[in-house]
Protein backbone atom coordinates (compact mmCIF):
# COMPACT_ATOMS: atom_id res chain seq x y z
CA UNK A 1 0.00 0.00 0.00
CA UNK A 2 1.41 3.37 -1.03
CA UNK A 3 0.73 6.01 1.63
CA UNK A 4 2.54 8.76 -0.26
CA UNK A 5 5.43 10.98 0.81
CA UNK A 6 4.11 11.42 4.37
CA UNK A 7 3.73 7.72 5.13
CA UNK A 8 6.01 7.95 8.16
CA UNK A 9 3.67 10.47 9.85
CA UNK A 10 0.60 8.33 9.13
CA UNK A 11 2.22 5.12 10.39
CA UNK A 12 3.59 6.90 13.48
CA UNK A 13 0.10 8.25 14.28
CA UNK A 14 -1.55 4.85 14.08
CA UNK A 15 1.24 3.06 15.96
CA UNK A 16 1.22 5.76 18.65
CA UNK A 17 -2.55 5.46 19.04
CA UNK A 18 -2.30 1.67 19.21
CA UNK A 19 0.46 1.87 21.83
CA UNK A 20 -1.40 4.36 24.05
CA UNK A 21 -4.70 2.44 23.86
CA UNK A 22 -2.99 -0.93 24.40
CA UNK A 23 -1.19 0.45 27.48
CA UNK A 24 -4.46 1.84 28.85
CA UNK A 25 -6.40 -1.38 28.24
CA UNK A 26 -3.55 -3.48 29.67
CA UNK A 27 -3.42 -1.33 32.81
CA UNK A 28 -7.21 -1.57 33.28
CA UNK A 29 -7.23 -5.36 32.85
CA UNK A 30 -4.26 -5.94 35.17
CA UNK A 31 -5.63 -3.54 37.79
CA UNK A 32 -8.99 -5.33 37.69
CA UNK A 33 -7.32 -8.73 38.17
CA UNK A 34 -5.24 -7.38 41.06
CA UNK A 35 -8.29 -5.99 42.87
CA UNK A 36 -10.35 -9.13 42.26
CA UNK A 37 -7.53 -11.32 43.60
CA UNK A 38 -7.12 -9.14 46.70
CA UNK A 39 -10.87 -9.32 47.34
CA UNK A 40 -10.91 -13.11 46.94
CA UNK A 41 -8.01 -13.48 49.38
CA UNK A 42 -9.75 -11.35 51.99
CA UNK A 43 -13.04 -13.21 51.59
CA UNK A 44 -11.23 -16.56 51.74
CA UNK A 45 -9.82 -15.50 55.12
CA UNK A 46 -13.37 -14.92 56.30
CA UNK A 47 -13.12 -11.13 56.44
CA UNK A 48 -16.56 -9.53 56.20
CA UNK A 49 -17.74 -5.99 56.37
CA UNK A 50 -19.07 -4.93 59.75
CA UNK A 51 -22.66 -4.75 58.52
CA UNK A 52 -22.53 -8.42 57.46
CA UNK A 53 -19.85 -10.00 59.58
CA UNK A 54 -20.68 -8.30 62.87
Amino acid at each position, binding site marked *: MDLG*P*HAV*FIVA*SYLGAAA*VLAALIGWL*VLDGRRQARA*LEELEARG*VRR*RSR*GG
Partner: protein
Amino acid sequence: MPAAGRRVTGVSCADPLQGLNRAMQNQSLTQKLANPTRFMDLSGRLLPWLAWGSTSIIAAALYLAFFVAPPDYQQGHTVKIMFIHVPSAWLAMMAYALIAASSFGLLVFRHPLADVSAKAAAPIGAAFTLLALVTGSLWGKPMWGAYWVWDARLTSVLMLFFLYLGLMALRSSMEDEALAAKLTAVLALVGVVLLPIIKFSVDWWNTLHQPSTGLTSTVHTSIRTPLLVSAVGFSLLFFAMHLKGMRNEVLRRRVKALRLAEVERAQGAGGGRVAAPAE
Protein backbone atom coordinates in the same frame (compact mmCIF):
# COMPACT_ATOMS: atom_id res chain seq x y z
CA MET B 1 -46.89 10.68 62.80
CA PRO B 2 -48.37 12.38 59.70
CA ALA B 3 -49.44 10.18 56.80
CA ALA B 4 -46.54 11.34 54.63
CA GLY B 5 -44.08 10.20 57.28
CA ARG B 6 -45.20 6.61 56.91
CA ARG B 7 -44.60 6.57 53.19
CA VAL B 8 -41.49 5.61 51.27
CA THR B 9 -41.46 7.62 48.03
CA GLY B 10 -45.21 7.69 47.96
CA VAL B 11 -45.79 4.01 48.85
CA SER B 12 -47.79 3.15 51.95
CA CYS B 13 -45.80 1.19 54.50
CA ALA B 14 -48.61 -1.05 55.74
CA ASP B 15 -46.37 -3.95 54.67
CA PRO B 16 -42.80 -2.61 55.02
CA LEU B 17 -41.19 -5.19 52.71
CA GLN B 18 -43.80 -4.71 50.01
CA GLY B 19 -43.44 -0.94 50.35
CA LEU B 20 -39.70 -1.17 50.03
CA ASN B 21 -39.97 -3.37 46.94
CA ARG B 22 -42.38 -0.91 45.34
CA ALA B 23 -40.15 1.99 46.24
CA MET B 24 -37.18 0.22 44.61
CA GLN B 25 -39.25 -0.38 41.47
CA ASN B 26 -40.07 3.34 41.32
CA GLN B 27 -36.41 4.34 41.50
CA SER B 28 -34.87 6.23 38.58
CA LEU B 29 -31.95 4.69 36.69
CA THR B 30 -29.40 6.81 38.56
CA GLN B 31 -30.97 5.80 41.89
CA LYS B 32 -30.84 2.12 40.88
CA LEU B 33 -27.20 2.47 39.87
CA ALA B 34 -26.41 4.09 43.22
CA ASN B 35 -26.19 0.56 44.56
CA PRO B 36 -22.62 -0.59 43.74
CA THR B 37 -23.66 -4.28 43.76
CA ARG B 38 -26.35 -3.61 41.17
CA PHE B 39 -23.90 -1.48 39.17
CA MET B 40 -21.35 -4.33 39.18
CA ASP B 41 -24.02 -6.74 37.98
CA LEU B 42 -25.27 -4.48 35.17
CA SER B 43 -21.82 -3.32 34.07
CA GLY B 44 -20.52 -6.90 34.10
CA ARG B 45 -23.21 -7.84 31.59
CA LEU B 46 -22.77 -4.71 29.45
CA LEU B 47 -18.97 -4.65 29.30
CA PRO B 48 -18.40 -7.62 26.90
CA TRP B 49 -20.91 -6.15 24.44
CA LEU B 50 -19.20 -2.77 24.55
CA ALA B 51 -15.74 -4.31 24.20
CA TRP B 52 -16.63 -6.52 21.25
CA GLY B 53 -18.75 -3.81 19.64
CA SER B 54 -15.96 -1.25 19.82
CA THR B 55 -13.38 -3.77 18.53
CA SER B 56 -15.55 -4.67 15.53
CA ILE B 57 -16.39 -1.07 14.66
CA ILE B 58 -12.76 0.09 15.00
CA ALA B 59 -11.71 -2.81 12.74
CA ALA B 60 -14.31 -1.66 10.19
CA ALA B 61 -13.04 1.93 10.51
CA LEU B 62 -9.45 0.78 9.86
CA TYR B 63 -10.60 -1.10 6.76
CA LEU B 64 -12.48 1.96 5.48
CA ALA B 65 -9.53 4.24 6.29
CA PHE B 66 -6.85 2.17 4.53
CA PHE B 67 -8.74 0.35 1.75
CA VAL B 68 -11.75 2.49 0.87
CA ALA B 69 -11.17 6.18 1.67
CA PRO B 70 -9.43 8.00 -1.20
CA PRO B 71 -6.59 10.50 -0.63
CA ASP B 72 -7.86 14.01 0.03
CA TYR B 73 -7.42 16.47 -2.84
CA GLN B 74 -5.32 18.77 -0.60
CA GLN B 75 -3.98 16.59 2.23
CA GLY B 76 -3.36 13.42 0.24
CA HIS B 77 -3.12 10.27 2.40
CA THR B 78 -2.34 12.41 5.44
CA VAL B 79 -6.11 12.75 5.88
CA LYS B 80 -5.99 9.22 7.36
CA ILE B 81 -4.53 10.78 10.52
CA MET B 82 -7.83 12.65 10.93
CA PHE B 83 -9.63 9.33 11.46
CA ILE B 84 -7.91 8.99 14.83
CA HIS B 85 -7.19 12.66 15.59
CA VAL B 86 -10.81 13.87 15.41
CA PRO B 87 -12.34 11.08 17.58
CA SER B 88 -9.50 11.50 20.10
CA ALA B 89 -10.09 15.25 20.34
CA TRP B 90 -13.84 14.73 20.67
CA LEU B 91 -13.36 12.15 23.43
CA ALA B 92 -10.82 14.34 25.22
CA MET B 93 -13.56 16.94 25.66
CA MET B 94 -16.38 14.46 26.27
CA ALA B 95 -14.38 12.74 29.02
CA TYR B 96 -13.88 16.07 30.75
CA ALA B 97 -17.59 16.88 30.43
CA LEU B 98 -18.30 13.49 32.03
CA ILE B 99 -15.88 14.25 34.88
CA ALA B 100 -17.55 17.63 35.42
CA ALA B 101 -21.04 16.08 35.42
CA SER B 102 -19.87 13.36 37.84
CA SER B 103 -18.28 16.00 40.07
CA PHE B 104 -21.56 17.90 40.09
CA GLY B 105 -23.31 14.63 41.00
CA LEU B 106 -20.91 14.14 43.89
CA LEU B 107 -21.06 17.67 45.30
CA VAL B 108 -24.80 18.28 44.85
CA PHE B 109 -26.50 14.86 44.97
CA ARG B 110 -23.79 12.89 46.83
CA HIS B 111 -24.34 10.01 44.41
CA PRO B 112 -22.19 7.09 45.64
CA LEU B 113 -20.85 6.27 42.18
CA ALA B 114 -20.26 9.86 41.03
CA ASP B 115 -16.73 10.03 42.41
CA VAL B 116 -16.02 6.53 41.11
CA SER B 117 -17.02 7.75 37.64
CA ALA B 118 -14.94 10.96 37.85
CA LYS B 119 -11.87 9.09 39.10
CA ALA B 120 -12.12 6.40 36.41
CA ALA B 121 -12.59 8.89 33.56
CA ALA B 122 -9.54 11.04 34.35
CA PRO B 123 -6.71 8.78 33.06
CA ILE B 124 -8.77 7.76 30.01
CA GLY B 125 -9.51 11.39 29.17
CA ALA B 126 -5.85 12.27 29.64
CA ALA B 127 -4.84 9.46 27.26
CA PHE B 128 -7.24 10.66 24.55
CA THR B 129 -6.06 14.26 25.01
CA LEU B 130 -2.47 13.08 24.61
CA LEU B 131 -3.48 11.18 21.47
CA ALA B 132 -5.21 14.26 20.05
CA LEU B 133 -2.08 16.34 20.69
CA VAL B 134 0.36 13.78 19.28
CA THR B 135 -1.64 12.89 16.18
CA GLY B 136 -2.37 16.57 15.55
CA SER B 137 1.32 17.29 15.80
CA LEU B 138 2.14 14.45 13.38
CA TRP B 139 -0.45 15.83 10.96
CA GLY B 140 0.79 19.40 11.42
CA LYS B 141 4.39 18.77 10.40
CA PRO B 142 3.65 17.73 6.77
CA MET B 143 0.63 20.06 6.41
CA TRP B 144 1.70 23.22 8.26
CA GLY B 145 5.45 22.67 8.25
CA ALA B 146 5.63 22.61 12.07
CA TYR B 147 4.93 20.05 14.79
CA TRP B 148 3.63 22.73 17.11
CA VAL B 149 2.40 26.32 17.01
CA TRP B 150 1.12 28.34 19.97
CA ASP B 151 -2.28 28.52 18.36
CA ALA B 152 -5.37 29.09 20.55
CA ARG B 153 -6.86 25.64 19.81
CA LEU B 154 -3.60 23.73 20.35
CA THR B 155 -2.70 25.70 23.47
CA SER B 156 -6.14 25.29 25.05
CA VAL B 157 -6.06 21.51 24.41
CA LEU B 158 -2.57 21.40 25.98
CA MET B 159 -4.07 23.18 29.01
CA LEU B 160 -6.79 20.51 29.12
CA PHE B 161 -4.08 17.83 29.22
CA PHE B 162 -2.37 19.60 32.13
CA LEU B 163 -5.75 19.93 33.85
CA TYR B 164 -6.23 16.17 33.62
CA LEU B 165 -2.77 15.66 35.14
CA GLY B 166 -3.63 18.20 37.85
CA LEU B 167 -6.85 16.35 38.73
CA MET B 168 -5.01 13.05 39.08
CA ALA B 169 -2.13 14.63 41.01
CA LEU B 170 -4.48 16.42 43.42
CA ARG B 171 -6.42 13.24 44.15
CA SER B 172 -3.32 11.16 44.75
CA SER B 173 -1.70 13.81 46.95
CA MET B 174 -4.18 13.31 49.81
CA GLU B 175 -4.73 10.28 52.02
CA ASP B 176 -8.24 11.31 53.04
CA GLU B 177 -10.17 9.97 50.03
CA ALA B 178 -13.42 11.79 50.84
CA LEU B 179 -11.63 15.15 51.04
CA ALA B 180 -9.61 14.37 47.91
CA ALA B 181 -12.82 13.54 46.04
CA LYS B 182 -14.47 16.83 47.04
CA LEU B 183 -11.45 19.00 46.23
CA THR B 184 -10.92 17.23 42.90
CA ALA B 185 -14.60 17.75 42.09
CA VAL B 186 -14.31 21.48 42.81
CA LEU B 187 -11.23 21.75 40.58
CA ALA B 188 -13.02 19.76 37.84
CA LEU B 189 -16.00 22.12 37.96
CA VAL B 190 -13.77 25.20 37.85
CA GLY B 191 -11.85 23.73 34.92
CA VAL B 192 -15.00 23.12 32.89
CA VAL B 193 -14.69 26.70 31.64
CA LEU B 194 -11.94 25.36 29.38
CA LEU B 195 -14.40 23.35 27.26
CA PRO B 196 -16.15 26.31 25.56
CA ILE B 197 -12.76 27.99 25.18
CA ILE B 198 -11.47 24.93 23.28
CA LYS B 199 -14.66 24.61 21.25
CA PHE B 200 -14.90 28.26 20.20
CA SER B 201 -11.18 29.11 20.12
CA VAL B 202 -11.18 28.72 16.34
CA ASP B 203 -14.00 31.27 16.08
CA TRP B 204 -12.86 33.75 18.71
CA TRP B 205 -9.22 33.99 17.63
CA ASN B 206 -7.38 33.90 14.34
CA THR B 207 -5.98 30.39 14.54
CA LEU B 208 -3.94 28.18 12.24
CA HIS B 209 -6.17 25.28 13.25
CA GLN B 210 -9.11 25.14 10.85
CA PRO B 211 -12.64 25.86 12.14
CA SER B 212 -14.90 22.95 12.99
CA THR B 213 -16.03 21.23 9.81
CA GLY B 214 -18.93 19.48 11.53
CA LEU B 215 -20.44 16.19 10.46
CA THR B 216 -22.99 17.64 8.06
CA SER B 217 -20.66 19.93 6.21
CA THR B 218 -19.00 19.75 2.85
CA VAL B 219 -16.67 16.86 3.78
CA HIS B 220 -17.13 14.24 1.06
CA THR B 221 -18.96 11.05 2.05
CA SER B 222 -15.91 8.93 1.20
CA ILE B 223 -14.00 10.73 3.96
CA ARG B 224 -16.90 11.46 6.30
CA THR B 225 -18.06 7.81 6.55
CA PRO B 226 -14.77 6.37 7.91
CA LEU B 227 -14.53 9.39 10.21
CA LEU B 228 -18.01 8.72 11.62
CA VAL B 229 -17.41 4.97 11.94
CA SER B 230 -14.12 5.65 13.71
CA ALA B 231 -15.79 8.16 16.06
CA VAL B 232 -18.47 5.60 17.00
CA GLY B 233 -15.86 2.86 17.54
CA PHE B 234 -13.63 5.08 19.68
CA SER B 235 -16.64 6.30 21.69
CA LEU B 236 -17.72 2.72 22.45
CA LEU B 237 -14.13 1.92 23.42
CA PHE B 238 -14.13 4.90 25.76
CA PHE B 239 -17.34 3.75 27.46
CA ALA B 240 -15.99 0.20 27.74
CA MET B 241 -12.77 1.45 29.37
CA HIS B 242 -14.70 3.81 31.63
CA LEU B 243 -16.97 1.01 32.83
CA LYS B 244 -13.94 -1.21 33.43
CA GLY B 245 -12.21 1.59 35.34
CA MET B 246 -15.33 2.13 37.46
CA ARG B 247 -15.59 -1.59 38.20
CA ASN B 248 -11.92 -1.63 39.25
CA GLU B 249 -12.52 1.34 41.55
CA VAL B 250 -15.57 -0.29 43.18
CA LEU B 251 -13.46 -3.41 43.80
CA ARG B 252 -10.60 -1.29 45.18
CA ARG B 253 -12.99 0.37 47.66
CA ARG B 254 -14.37 -3.01 48.73
CA VAL B 255 -10.84 -4.28 49.31
CA LYS B 256 -10.04 -1.19 51.34
CA ALA B 257 -13.24 -1.56 53.42
CA LEU B 258 -12.50 -5.23 54.11
CA ARG B 259 -8.90 -4.51 55.11
CA LEU B 260 -10.15 -1.81 57.46
CA ALA B 261 -12.75 -4.21 58.92
CA GLU B 262 -10.02 -6.84 59.35
CA VAL B 263 -7.77 -4.43 61.25
CA GLU B 264 -10.66 -3.21 63.43
CA ARG B 265 -11.69 -6.79 64.23
CA ALA B 266 -8.11 -7.70 65.06
CA GLN B 267 -7.81 -4.65 67.30
CA GLY B 268 -11.07 -5.56 69.05
CA ALA B 269 -10.00 -9.17 69.58
CA GLY B 270 -6.54 -8.26 70.77
CA GLY B 271 -7.60 -5.56 73.23
CA GLY B 272 -6.35 -2.72 71.05
CA ARG B 273 -3.31 -4.49 69.66
CA VAL B 274 -3.13 -5.22 65.95
CA ALA B 275 -3.09 -8.99 65.61
CA ALA B 276 -2.60 -11.28 62.67
CA PRO B 277 -5.58 -11.55 60.30
CA ALA B 278 -8.29 -13.96 61.40
CA GLU B 279 -8.48 -17.41 59.81
